[in-house]
Structures are given as C-alpha cells and as structure tokens.
C-alpha cells in the first residue's frame, strides 16, 4: 500500500529538486552576468559633479533643533545656513544670510542686516522674522533641543527656557523689520558669532513645520525628502534610511552661482573598516575616519590622500572623587603623572594626536594652557606612597569603565599596563555597551571612566564649564565653588581677551591641582580624501564648507 504513495512522493520530490536546481542555476547566471565592474563612483562623480561622502552613522533627524551628532551636522549644513558662516580654514565668522552686522560698544547688542536675495528653497522670501520664530521654537522644552544652551547668552533666553518667564517678547531677539534682526545679550560673549554657525541656531521654515504638525512637536515628517524646505546651498532630494541621503544644488540659494557641486551623496557607514575599503575601491571621495592600524600604512606610503589635522577635542579619563581610593588628590595626581602620553599616541592611537596635559586644547581662541603636569613615574610613585600606598601596596581594586569600542579598548589596555608598571597597582577593565555605560557613569558607579569632549564652539569656556559643581557633564563628583565663581561670574565680566584668558588659566590650574580628570590627548581628525576633492580644507572643528568644494580629477 505504501509503494504507490512512496513512488508518487518521490516523483514530486524529484520535480521539486529539479525545479530548485534550475532556479538556482538561473539565479547564479543572472548574478554573474550582472557582474563586471562598471565605472566607479569617484570617476563618475568627478565628471558630473557628485561628491560621495562617507558619513558615519545614519542621521537620527535633520531637524536642526533636535539633531545632535556630527553626521547630522554635515547634512544640515548642506541644506541650511545660519546668519554667519565661517572661513573654511581659520573659522573666522564671515557673512552668511546676514550680509553685515554691527556690535554695540559694550558688546551686548548685535544688529544683523539680512541679504535681500535670501530665499528659502521653495522660493519664499527669507526674513528676520524667521529667526525670531526659529529661536522661539528652539527654546520650547517640549521639543527636546539638547543645544538650547547655545542660545543662553541671549538676554532672558535661559529664564524663558526654564519657565521663569513666559513672555517670549522679553527675550533679547527682535526683528526690527524684514531685513534687520537685533539680538541683545546678557553680557558680552566673544564667541557669540560662532554660535550662529551652529546648526541649532539655524532658521527653519515656519509654514513647512506647521504643515506637518505643531511647532514644538518632535517626529513630524517635515524633514523628509519632498517636504524639507531649507535655506542652504543644497536641497534634500532623496533619503533612503541606512543607504544614502542625496542633496542637489538649490537654485534659490543667495550664492547659488558660486556653488560648484551638483550633488552630494551622504552614505552612512558605521563600520570604519568597511569605509576604508570602499574608499580604496573608489566608491567614496571622503571617509569620516580611518582605523588606527591603517594610519601607519598610509603614512609610511606618504599617501597624499591621508589627511590628519588637529581637532578641537580632548580625550580624558574621569576620576570618581567620591570613591574612597580616589578621594585623595595625591592619588589622582599620581595616576595622571604615570600616563606615558607620548608612547600612547605614537604606538596605539597613531593618528598624530597631541599629548594633553590640560583640559582645554592648546590654541583655543589664542589660549595655550600652562600645566605643571608631566610624565613622571618616580614622582608619581612618591605621591602614591605619601597617600598611603607605598609601591602600590594595599591599593583597592579599581576599574576602568569604557564603552565597547576598539579605540577605547586599546587606550584602556595600555593605561592598565602603565599603571601596573609605574605604580604597581592592579587595575581591571570593564567595558559596557554604550547606553549601559552612560547609565553607570551618570549614576557615579565607576572608579575611572573614559570620556571625550568635542568643542561646540572655539572657546575655553566650552571645555572648562564642564566641571561646574552641578554641570550635567561633570559626573566626577568634584566641586569647587571658587572654580564655579571664576567660570560663571568672573570670566564673563572681563573686558579684555587677555584678562579673560588669565581667569581661564587660573581655573584650569585649580582643575589640574585637584585632578578630577586625567587629560590624555587632544584629538586629531583623520580622514581619507580623494585628490580630486578641492577646497575641503582642514580646520579644528572639522566642519566642511560644501558650497566651496569642487571636484577636479588629476590628469
């Protein structure tokens, strides 16, 4: 009885097998005939003016008042623009939407004159009222703008944001007429013009935002292709998540005639090893970074496509001063003194990073911090002995916390060994996945923790105000009221740059004496840039001026 059915199923089975085989062969054939390398992105792009840009992670949003990351900032700066721009080399403020401005003698009132040919990408006129409205939006707590503090130098802005005053007309921003914007500050802020080139202060198009939802509503669709209206040199034409974002020249841009690129394709690539291979296969003009171990290869080959430039950021370790073994400043100082920074940057990070002996990167607004911190293992040993741990004996078990990442792992492994070698103390490593790490760190449940700070604007203030007593980014438990007073009250009241920098130096010294942090190195930006890309000049913010870039293949 089973014979028949068996035979029948066998037959069916065979049919299926054959069908499968044929399907497989057909697919292999289709796949293979499709093969044969076509023209690379780079050579095609050089011909038709398309820049292929490796852009790190997928942007969360293109709403300038919600966005927070570097990948977001690149795209936003292509499709939007602030009152001022920056010189692409020196970062000096240059006219953007505002063709000129006046600053009152006491440095607190700025009057901007807007260009009369400023337009939105849909052709609407672009006026001073757009700024008043956009900054009102930026200060709505419901929007969840993490960069609201960029507007706090403006009179009453902080009070409005925190709900102490509810009338926005009391905030120091006023459109005197369509082309004149007046901004009043609480006190002279030498870096104020810089803030106007930060995306969180960019104007947004009111009608578009209101078309897709409330002004202070997150997650509306106004930033998608077809919806987004901006005022920048480019406009958004395509956004395929995790695949690419494409922007094209904006014909309504005030300086459209001087924009050379036709198109920029931003490709989100989290994996920097993949990114480097894409660059080698000529699928990218520019990478967002380069793995440390590849840097030496490109360096050895003297490859002109390797680009290393100082970057306004400090890599440091936080020391949790609430932990018993780290309460004593001598212990913290000893830890900082036994880090051989030069060896670390030469052999591990390899990207030409500059050993850091102070928190603020040297040369920030003409400020070169002085520091008495050096690599001194003998002195460190003595200090540790004075603190009660001769030759590291009895030093309690201590951990370095870092978030899971190759680069952080390498630095931690190297430091672990340095502390073992020079101080004879055993330090363990603890890596945690990003969000867990953030939780652990802000809950203060760590001893030593890896940290980094990239400047939002070029001023020592941006680095030193991290360590205010109740600063959200302090997280070390270190608190010094005199330090707070210097940063919050004394520095802003200084009339000359020199005096101001002296105050910062004084504050910096207090920080270094107490050592709640161990500065390790000043960042560099390390990128691969195809030789056809012109006018992409390195600067310490690593911010590109897309409107200036042009492509010209070498002959």
């Amino acid at each position, binding site marked *: 009885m089973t014979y028949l059915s068996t035979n029948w199923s066998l037959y069916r089975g065979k049919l299926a097998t054959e069908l499968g085989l044929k399907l497989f062969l057909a697919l292999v054939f289709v796949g293979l005939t499709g093969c044969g390398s076509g023209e690379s992105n780079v050579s095609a792009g050089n011909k038709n003016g398309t820049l292929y840009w490796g852009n790190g992670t997928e942007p969360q949003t293109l709403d300038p008042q919600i966005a927070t990351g570097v990948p977001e900032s690149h795209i936003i700066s292509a499709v939007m623009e602030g009152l001022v721009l920056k010189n692409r080399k020196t970062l000096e403020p240059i006219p953007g939407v505002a063709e000129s401005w006046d600053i009152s003698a006491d440095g607190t009132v700025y009057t901007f004159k807007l260009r009369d040919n400023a337009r939105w990408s849909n052709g609407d006129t672009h006026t001073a009222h757009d700024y008043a409205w956009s900054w009102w939006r930026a200060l709505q707590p419901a929007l969840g703008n993490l960069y609201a503090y960029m507007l706090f130098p403006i009179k009453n802005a902080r009070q409005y944001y925190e709900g102490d005053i509810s009338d926005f007309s009391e905030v120091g921003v006023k459109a005197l007429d369509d082309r004149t914007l007046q901004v009043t500050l609480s006190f002279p802020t030498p870096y104020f013009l810089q803030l106007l080139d930060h995306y969180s202060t960019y104007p947004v198009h009111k009608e578009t935002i209101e078309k897709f939802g409330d002004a202070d509503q997150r997650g509306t669709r106004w930033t998608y292709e077809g919806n987004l209206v901006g005022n920048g040199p480019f406009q958004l034409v395509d956004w395929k998540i995790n695949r690419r974002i494409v922007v094209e020249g904006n014909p309504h841009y005030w300086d459209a005639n001087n924009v050379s690129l036709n198109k920029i394709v931003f490709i989100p690539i989290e994996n920097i090893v993949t990114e480097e291979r894409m660059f080698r296969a000529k699928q990218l003009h520019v990478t967002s970074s380069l*793995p440390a*171990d590849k840097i030496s290869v490109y360096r050895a080959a003297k490859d002109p496509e390797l680009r290393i430039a100082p970057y306004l950021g400090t890599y440091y370790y936080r020391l949790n001063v609430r932990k018993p073994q780290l309460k004593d400043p001598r212990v913290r100082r000893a830890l900082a003194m036994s880090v051989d920074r030069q060896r*670390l940057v030469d*052999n*591990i990070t390899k990207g030409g990073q500059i050993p850091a002996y102070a928190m603020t990167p040297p040369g920030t607004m003409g400020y070169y911090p002085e520091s008495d911190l050096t690599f001194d293992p003998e002195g460190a040993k003595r200090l540790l002995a004075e603190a009660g741990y001769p030759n590291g004996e009895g030093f309690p078990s201590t951990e370095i916390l870092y978030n899971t990442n190759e680069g952080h792992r390498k630095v931690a492994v190297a430091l672990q060994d340095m502390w073992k070698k020079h101080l004879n103390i055993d330090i363990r*490593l603890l890596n945690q996945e990003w969000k867990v790490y953030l939780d652990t760190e802000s809950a203060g449940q760590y001893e030593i923790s890896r940290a980094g700070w990239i400047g939002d604007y070029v001023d020592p203030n941006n680095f030193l105000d991290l360590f205010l007593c109740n600063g959200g980014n302090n997280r070390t438990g270190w608190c010094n009221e005199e330090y707070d007073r210097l940063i919050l009250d004394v520095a802003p009241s200084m009339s000359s740059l020199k005096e101001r920098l002296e105050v910062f130096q004084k504050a910096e010294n207090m920080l270094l004496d107490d050592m709640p942090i161990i500065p390790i190195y000043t960042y560099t930006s390390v990128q691969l840039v195809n030789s056809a890309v012109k006018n992409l000049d390195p600067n310490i913010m690593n911010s590109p001026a897309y409107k200036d870039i042009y492509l010209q293949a070498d002959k």
Partner: protein
Amino acid sequence: MNNSSSETTVMPDDQGTSLWQDAWIKLSKNRLALFGLAVLVTLILVSLLTPLIAPYGYEEQNLDMGATAPSLQHWLGTDIFGRDMLTRIMYGGRVSLMVGFIATAVALVIGILWGATAGFFGGRLDAVMMRIVDVLYALPFMIFIILLMVVFGRNILLLFLAIGAVEWLTMARIVRSQVMSLRNQEFVEAAHSLGLSQWTIIRRHIIPNTLGPVIVYTTLTIPSVMLLEAFLSFLGLGIQPPESSWGLLINYGVETMEEFPWLLIFPGIALSLTLFALNFLGDGLRDALDPRTSKD
C-alpha cells in the same frame, strides 16, 4: 524504509556495555579519529599547563616594540601592544576550550532530554514543548544578553549558560525529528511488546540510535559556540581584556589582516586545528557508535 527493521535489531539488556567496547575497538582502528583525539588531548594538556610553560606573561606589554612578525624571541610574533602572541594564544585556548566544551555540554544535555521527550511522547506534550522552543528561537538574543550582563554582572559561568541556552534549541529539534522517525520502527514496537518501560526504551534504544546525528551536530556546535563566544566578548559580555580567547583574537586579527597577518593566521590555525580534531573524532565516534555498522 518500511522494512529496515531487519537491519536494526532489538538489543538484549546486556548489550549496553558491549556496545561501548565494540565502539572503542572500532575507534582505535580509525587513524584520523585517533589523531583527532591526540590533538585534543594535547591541547587540553597545554591549556592546563599554560601558566607553567607559557614563555611570557600574557599581559606583558612593550609599546615601543608594537606588532612584530614572528622571530626567535617571539615565535608567533607580537600584537600591537608588543605582547607575545604564543602566550596569548595559549591563554586564549584555555578560555575557548572551556567555553566550547562546557557550553556545548549544557546545550547537549538540555537539547537531548527535551528533544527526546518531545519526540518520544509526541501529541500534546510534543506540541507544547516545541512551541516553547519556538518562543525561545524568536526571542531577541541581543537584548537578552545585554540584560543578563547588567543584571548578573560579568561572569564566565553566565557566558556558558547564555550560550548553552541558545544552542540547545537546534539540538532539541534534531533529536526530536530523529526520535519521531525511530519510535514507530518495529524494533521499538517489539521492545514495547516485550514489556520494557518507556524510560528503558528511551535509554536503551532511542538514545543510542540518535547518537549518530547528535555527535555530528555536536562537532558542529563546538565551533559555533567558540565563535559565538567571540561575538559576545566583542559585545562586552564575559571575557574582559587583557584576557582573551581565540575567537576574540581572530576578531581583532581581522581588522589588521592586511598589516599584521600573523595576528589573524595563528589564532586561526589554533582554532581550525581544534575544530578539525573535533571533526575527525566526531566522525570516528559516529561510525563506531552506529549500531548498524556493528554488523558489517
């Protein structure tokens, strides 16, 4: 298939021991299997003795030297911290072998018991048990791991459990399907009619007959466990630097395979050698344990 019963016989009670003796005799004739066994024993011995025989300390760094190719001082070269690779591979092997064997053992025990029970009893029990397997299959592994890591802290035992908890599912399915196809064959029915208890039937007939596929799958599971361990360590669960494992060494080696190929090649060889040895031994064991081949 219907008349395959003439091939597999009902084994009398006392054949349990002679089966193993028989198997050992056959195994000892299989050169590849013996080679595999020898390699595994050597690796285990080396792992046990590593703290005594390793040429360097596993965290001894020499940053100025950095990554160097194999030389007389460092037979397998050094990594970017100037640490001796031979030493690191020896220490890494301890972790990898331990993870591989223990986690697989966990997976085996759970998987076989679960699968055999479901397959043997069938019906509603089978349905319930297999749906539980489906649920576990469908759970988000990554979240599960991250949660475990935080709730219980880093712990190598946890690593075994986490891996074992994932790997037993496939084992259970394989055993179940094997048992289902076996249980209606005549020799099992014959055992039933002889009045043997269900448990005895499972122990005497079902389990020995499923050993073949189980052993094959085990030789497949150990490598995947070792690789899974690398993936987990990379996520931050379990092994913390400067300690290491082969999977982790390979993971790091991949990133620099163009610049420092020895950082990938040697851990790769160590892992492959182990896996080949396991494979040869597994094949040998399968042939030796197959009740049918005993008659040939």
